[in-house]
């Protein structure tokens, strides 16, 4: 599965949180890799560990969380073996991240211009050039009135503009991987479309790979190349977008697809998935989805399914698909 095309490959990554109630294994032996110049979407419901995976990639897991195992191979080196100091050179320069909440993602006490140039100056460019480049970046992310906006404080901008500034800031140093952690969640639908458009275009322009974290299949269908579906700290299915949308093979993916609102079908109520997300302090033995799965069998409660190829490039972790 490993090829030269891979930019990052994550092998058996586990992250757990030590809470007073017990150890929560938020991410459990996750494997996937992101190819060069692709948009890779990590999909799943709240609390399934998708953001935690992204934070682990940046080595930004903070107390009480801890990366308990695995490897993150980025351009031939294991990020988990680097020192704190070496990570400063990776973050921003090679891997950047856009966050969920654009409203609080900018430092409230500085003007947009000085914040952008702050990010650029890290690359040892003179202050004057950095300011010039800052205005260019604002232009690039399609904010009207770039000169004037550059002199604004964050509170004077709308949420969409702030997210655009954020995107501009994160791509200003041409990272090879951009992590977008639900970049459009806090924005309304028209702005969402614009932001996605910008992300897509910039990806072409600076030839970066994007790890898109979302719970919105609509966004995924629109811009992603490949998808990984995550459930309760594990990846249950990986494949190309068309493979997952046409032939979802894991029952969880099928149910998720079934619960999407459709324009062309007349249905009464939206379908939902029965039950709740399992408690990750004591995750269910066997397949983690067996309690909610309509096809569940006795074996599902005993055997932990492995990722197996169902067709080329399409992997699935369910014992029912084996036949």
């Amino acid at each position, binding site marked *: 599965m490993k090829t030269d095309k891979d930019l990052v490959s994550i092998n058996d990554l586990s992250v757990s949180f030590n809470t007073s109630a017990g150890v929560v294994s938020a991410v459990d032996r996750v494997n996937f890799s992101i190819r060069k110049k692709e948009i890779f979407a990590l999909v799943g419901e709240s609390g399934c560990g998708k953001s935690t995976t992204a934070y682990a990639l*940046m080595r*930004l897991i903070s*107390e009480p969380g801890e990366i308990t195992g695995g490897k993150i191979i980025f351009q031939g080196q294991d990020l988990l073996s680097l020192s704190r100091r070496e990570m*400063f*050179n*990776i*973050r*921003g*320069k090679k891997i*950047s*991240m856009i*966050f*969920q*909440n654009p409203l*609080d*993602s*900018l*430092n*409230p*006490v*500085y003007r947009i211009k000085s914040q952008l140039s*702050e*990010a650029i100056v*890290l690359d040892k460019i003179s202050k004057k050039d950095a300011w010039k480049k800052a205005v260019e970046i604002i232009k690039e992310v399609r904010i009207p009135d770039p000169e004037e906006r550059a002199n604004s404080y964050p509170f004077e901008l709308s949420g969409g503009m702030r997210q655009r500034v*954020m995107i501009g*800031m*994160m791509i200003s*140093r041409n990272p090879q991987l951009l992590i977008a952690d639900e970049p459009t969640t806090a924005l309304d639908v028209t702005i969402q479309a614009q932001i996605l458009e910008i992300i897509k275009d910039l990806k072409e322009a600076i030839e970066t790979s994007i790890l898109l974290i979302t719970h919105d299949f609509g966004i995924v269908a629109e811009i992603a190349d490949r998808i990984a579906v995550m459930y309760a700290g594990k990846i249950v299915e990986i494949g190309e977008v068309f493979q997952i949308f046409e032939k979802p093979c894991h029952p969880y993916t099928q149910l998720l697809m079934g619960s999407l609102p459709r324009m062309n079908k007349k249905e009464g109520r939206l379908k939902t998935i029965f039950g709740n997300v399992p408690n990750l302090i004591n995750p269910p033995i066997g397949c983690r989805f067996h309690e909610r799965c309509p096809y569940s069998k006795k074996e599902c409660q005993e055997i932990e399914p492995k990722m197996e190829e169902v067709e080329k490039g399409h992997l699935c972790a369910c014992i029912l698909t084996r036949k």
Partner: protein
Amino acid sequence: MINNFIKDGLKNKTFCVGFFIFFSVLFIAIFADIIAPYTYDEMEIINKLNNPNQQHLFGTDRYGRDIFSRVVYGSRIALWVGLIVVIIESFIGISLGLLAGYYGGITNRIILFITDLTWSMPPIILALAIITMLGPSLNNVVTSIAIVSWAQFTRIVRAKTQSLKNMPFVEAARAFGENDFNIIFRYILPNVMPSIIVITTLALPSAILLTSSLGFLGLGAQPPLPDWGVILYNGIPFIRKAPWITIFPGFAIAYTVLGFNLLGEGLRDILDPKLKI
């Protein structure tokens, strides 16, 4: 930003009164040489214990020194000591607060322990103990007050830092490769600044009060320096015969401390309404 600040300031009466008093004390301290008709240690034995009159506005003490001039010059000592104390204690307090809040863990525990330790002792007693050790002088007063009262800065800066360090913009800064030093000084400190300004203005009057108290007890500024506490103490034996010796420096202390407190409270309402001190 600054225009808004002035607009808010004019609307806030507490702030206006406080600012006026602060400014008047500052003015008196700067132009003490012009305002005071005599020097602070000029003695006219013939005119000892005079009533307040045209020549001596606040009367004279037992050596015939002019109380008005002494009170005016006293403002210099009060402000100067207050200023130096606040600079030292805010430096110690802010650095420790930032370290404890940002790094957490064992650093936090150790700093919190020391903070609680100084916090748990009555400031005047601790200051007395330190001065007795170092010997009475104005410099030692500064040292002891700074040692006694830096903890208030640490507590508030630490709490603010802890909440700021989890703000998305700090996380974003980390994500684009800022190191700890930059995050502390460019992201956290500027956002704690409003609270620091407020605590500073409130720390100043307590420093002045403590200086006067130590002066009154004979451990601070040594005669003939016109520390307000010293003048007050010198007036005690004559409190029935010549009450003006104690009344005027006492009034000066109250006026200054009240002014700074009002200023601090006004600033708090303007800059940081949620801050509780």
